[in-house]
Structures are given as C-alpha cells and as structure tokens.
C-alpha cells in the first residue's frame, strides 16, 4: 500500500442471492484510491458501482476480500464498531438527499456531531461553517420541505463534511437535480477535493458529472474495465 493511498481494495467480491439465482455484484476487484482524489465510479445499472461504494463506506459487507481505509480493514469491524467508524471517517451524500424531514437544515447538519464529544458551542460553530461553505447559512432554520432540491442536496453535503471526515462518498448525488443545481453540487464536491484535500468517491451515470472528478473508473458486470 502506498502511503498516499487512503483506500486499498484487494480481491474484493460480493455475491448475493436473488430468489433462486446467485448474483455476482463484484468479482475480484483490486483498487487503490489516493488521498485527496475525486474518483468517479461509472458503469451501467447493475454493474456493481453502488455496491463497491457501499462496501468502502462500511454500510455493506463483501463476501470476500479486503477493503482497507487508512489502516482499518472495514470488513472486519462489527456492527457497532462500523457505526462509530462511519461517523468519524465517512460523509455521505445520497441521490434522494435523505434529510430528516422533521429537523431543520441546521439540526440535520448537526446530527452526526451529536455522536461526538464536542460541546454545544463547538457544534454550532462547525455547523455554521459547513452551511456557509455550501452557501446556505441563511437557510439554517428551514425544514427540508421549505428548500429546493438543490438546496436540500447542499444541506446534505454540509452534513457529510461537518465531522471533517477523511472520505466523502456520494451515490448519484445529481440524479434528482436540475442541471444548474447539479453543477453547484458537483462544484462543491470538487472544491472539497481540490482545495480542502478530502477524498471524494462518487457514483454517477452522467459523463458530464464524471468530468468534475480527477479520475474515473468503469465497472461492468462487477469487474473493472479500465
């Protein structure tokens, strides 16, 4: 493993059973992702790109292989260990934003910080900084339903970066956005990678979105094609 690699994947496979059929989602994948890289995962539906992203992010488990993020093999962590690890190391951005509808933008962004030992004052400062970074400081008291899709996704990005994680994973983050909102969201992810040095891994179908990344890899039938 190169010292600059944040993610090291070796011979990773994932199989699952769908009815009577065994489906191979990932087949013997090996991959390195460098610190600060903006990697895009592309491929047709069912190619395994989201499965790969989920395994890296610690929300799914492989059938075999190694997935090391920094020094930790996430495949070896138990349920509660994984929950803590995700909270401290990974920020998530989803296609459907996944904000909690009954909480305001501020409270949504603050959620992951409630699991840390930060004081209320420190939490407020961090939430404010994250919302300023995505240009939504003035919308902090709004509920998700009072925001546009683009604004919701920017709140979700603020939530992903508020804990200062090493890794930000985004699963089709522009899938539900119009082109200008998509542009804004991608620009923020790019900025996080280029200027702040965060490692961003994004799954997308859209080649225009993939162009914002520093490297793009393709999957097909669970295998890397380039």
């Amino acid at each position, binding site marked *: 493993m190169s010292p600059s690699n944040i993610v090291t994947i070796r011979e990773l496979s994932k199989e699952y059973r769908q009815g009577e059929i065994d489906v191979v989602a990932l087949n013997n994948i090996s991959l390195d992702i460098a610190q600060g890289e903006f990697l895009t995962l592309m491929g047709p539906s069912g190619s395994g790109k989201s499965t790969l992203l*989920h395994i890296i992010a610690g*929300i799914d488990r492989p059938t075999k292989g190694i997935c090391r993020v920094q020094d930790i093999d996430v495949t070896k962590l138990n349920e509660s260990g994984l929950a803590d690890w*995700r909270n401290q190391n990974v920020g*998530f951005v989803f296609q459907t934003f*996944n904000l*909690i509808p*009954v*909480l305001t933008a501020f409270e949504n962004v603050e959620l992951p910080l409630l*699991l840390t030992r930060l004081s209320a004052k420190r939490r407020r400062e961090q939430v404010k900084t994250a919302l300023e970074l995505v240009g939504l400081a003035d919308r902090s008291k709004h509920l998700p339903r009072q925001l546009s899709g683009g604004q919701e996704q920017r709140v979700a990005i603020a939530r992903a970066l508020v804990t200062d994680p090493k890794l930000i994973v985004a699963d089709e983050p522009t899938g539900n956005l119009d082109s200008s909102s998509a542009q804004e969201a991608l620009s923020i992810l790019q900025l996080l990678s280029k200027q702040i040095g965060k490692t961003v891994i994004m799954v997308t179908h859209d080649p225009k979105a993939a162009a914002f990344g520093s490297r793009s890899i393709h999957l097909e039938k669970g295998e890397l094609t380039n």
Partner: protein
Amino acid sequence: MALPLRYSFRNVLIRWRSTFATVLGIALVVFVFVLLQSLAAGIEKSSGNTGDSRNIMIVRKGSTAESASLISRENLREIQYFEEIARNERNEPVISADVLVLANLPRVNNNGEANVLLRGISARGAELRPQVKLIAGRWFTPGKREIVVSSRMAKRFANFGLGQSFKAGTASLTVVGWLDGGGSAFDSECWMDADECRSLFERDLYSSFLVRPVDEAAGAKLLERIEADRRFKLKAEKEEAYYQKQTMTAAPIKWLGGFLAIMMSVGAVFAAMNTMYASIGARTREIGTLRVLGFRRRSVVAALLIEGALLALIGGVVGCAIASLWNGYTTATMGFETFSEIVFEFTVTPRLMGEGLIFAVIVGLMGSFLPSVRASRLPVIDALKSV
C-alpha cells in the same frame, strides 16, 4: 448518544392526523380507568371522613357492620355507667345507642325505589358527630315522628323537602331539617330519635353504641374491658378504624375499573402498534440514514419508544382532563355494607391522574416496542433502498 428528543416529539406532531385515532383510543382507556378509580376513591373518602379519632364504636361480636349488629338494652344500662366513658356538663355519659333501619323509599321523578338508611340516635348522638351540621330547619323532637334527612339525599328522594312527610313501613315521618355530613358516610343517612325508631319499627334491640372515653388511656382501657368481659359478647374499636374497614363497596368498582382498563388497553396497545408500524414503515429510509450517520440500533429503538410513549402520554393527558370534569360530581350506589343507597362524590385525585398517565405510557411503550425493534434490525443497506 441518543437521538435528540425533538426528533421523537416532532414526529408525533407532524403525523397528528394518523396518530389522532390512537391518541383518542388511549384517552378513552385512561378516562375509563381514572373515572372508575375515582368512584372507588370517592366511596373510600366518604368512609374515611366519617370516624372521629376520640370515639369508640361498639357492635356485637362477629358483626362486620353496625347494620348487622344487635345489642340489648341491658348492655346499654351497664356500659353507660363505665367510669371510662366521658360525661358532659350535665353529668350525662357521652354515649349514643343507635338503631339502624332500612326503609324502601321512592326516588324523585318516579325513578324507582331504593333503600335508605334511617339512623335512630340517642340524645348524645349529634354531639358525638360534630362533623354533621344542621343546614336547614331544626333537629327532630322525640315522640313527634320527626326526622332530619341528609341534604344530598333530599335531592334524590321524593318528599324529602322541609315540612314534607313520607311513609316508612307503617309510620309516617315528617322532615323537619336537613343535615350535611361534610363528605362523610352520614351524607347517606336520615336521623331520628333512637327510641322512637325502635318503637315505630318494632325493634327491641339497638344496633350499635358510639361512646366518647374520658381520654386516650381510658379509651384503651375501655377497648380492653369490653373485649375481655364475656358477659357482653361485644366488639369495640376506634370509630375511625371501623369506618376505614367499611370500604367493601369500593372493592368491586376498583376491580371492575382495573379489569375494564386492562381489556381496553389490549385494544389500545394494538392501535398504538398499528400507528407506530405505519409511522415507522413510512420512514424506513430515514431510519437507514440515521444508522448510516452512526446512530446505533439502541439509539433508534430508544427514539421510537419515546415517540410511542409521547403519543400515549398525550392520550393520557386528554383522558385525565376529561375524567377531571367529573371531579366533585355527586352520585350514588348501593352500599354493600348496609344495602342502602350511599351518596358520594367522584374524587379524581392527583395520584389517580398520575396512575392514569403511567398506565398510558406503558400502553405506548408496549405498542411501539415491536415496531421499533423491527425497524432497528433492518440491515442499513436494505433500509436505505426502501422507497
């Protein structure tokens, strides 16, 4: 770390339309529970208010109530000269030999008939019961077939107005006064002269003696003396203790209240469960997101249990609020000690309301337990994929 309380609280409020029926169901259970218990509390309070700590009640050995007791006139002649018994300013022993008679009398508005307890008291009878006040008219004059009725009974029975007469057995009695028992069991009685009562209703024997000892020590001595003297075959106990035991009527009401509440709560638990399943089912992805962010299973379960408890608590508060409207309302039932109509007030105490709220929370927790555990056990990835 737990999810913030506002998460649970706002989830209850935001889905108020779907939770409304459950809240009402739980409110109904708590209402029935609190109301029936307040009936029992009213009966208990009425009995508990009755005794005077200075008095001693004497009944026949083996009798559980004075209405089932018979004491001879010879016993009165002997006991009234005991030196333990106090004497008033005219040097008369403070003792009342009472006769209890049941009369079947018509209610107001032709609303059927019910047994009324007529108490014949001796001259000292009213002195021994200072909580009983004459609030209208005058006390009866012995020998003139006069009677003083409880003002609360006057509202419930025909011909109980001042100056009116009613027939009890073969006798015709004239109401000359109204008494107020101050929330005691005497609110369910009519008083007349003891010897007149015995002669009108052909009773040779008295039912009970109520006596005032000289002091505490004399009281203890009197209890011992009557208990030890084999000639009497009598039982003496403090009047307070006697009335505290006279709460048998409250027991079946309490039992019925508990039973009904438990039966209804089974339905309420299922209603709460249904609401929580629907509420949780609609936000499986939200729960998946919370897990992804690092919240553990137990945090999710706790938040959902709190939500269910809050939901039920709102129902509980509504139920208690409605039940409290009955507080102080006067009603009557047949007393199992005397088989006569007893008048009492619904008594919704803070303790009863507290019990009602705890009951509601238990219903809420039971109803939300299974849905919460099921939601928390769903694999994160499956929860996220949920539509």
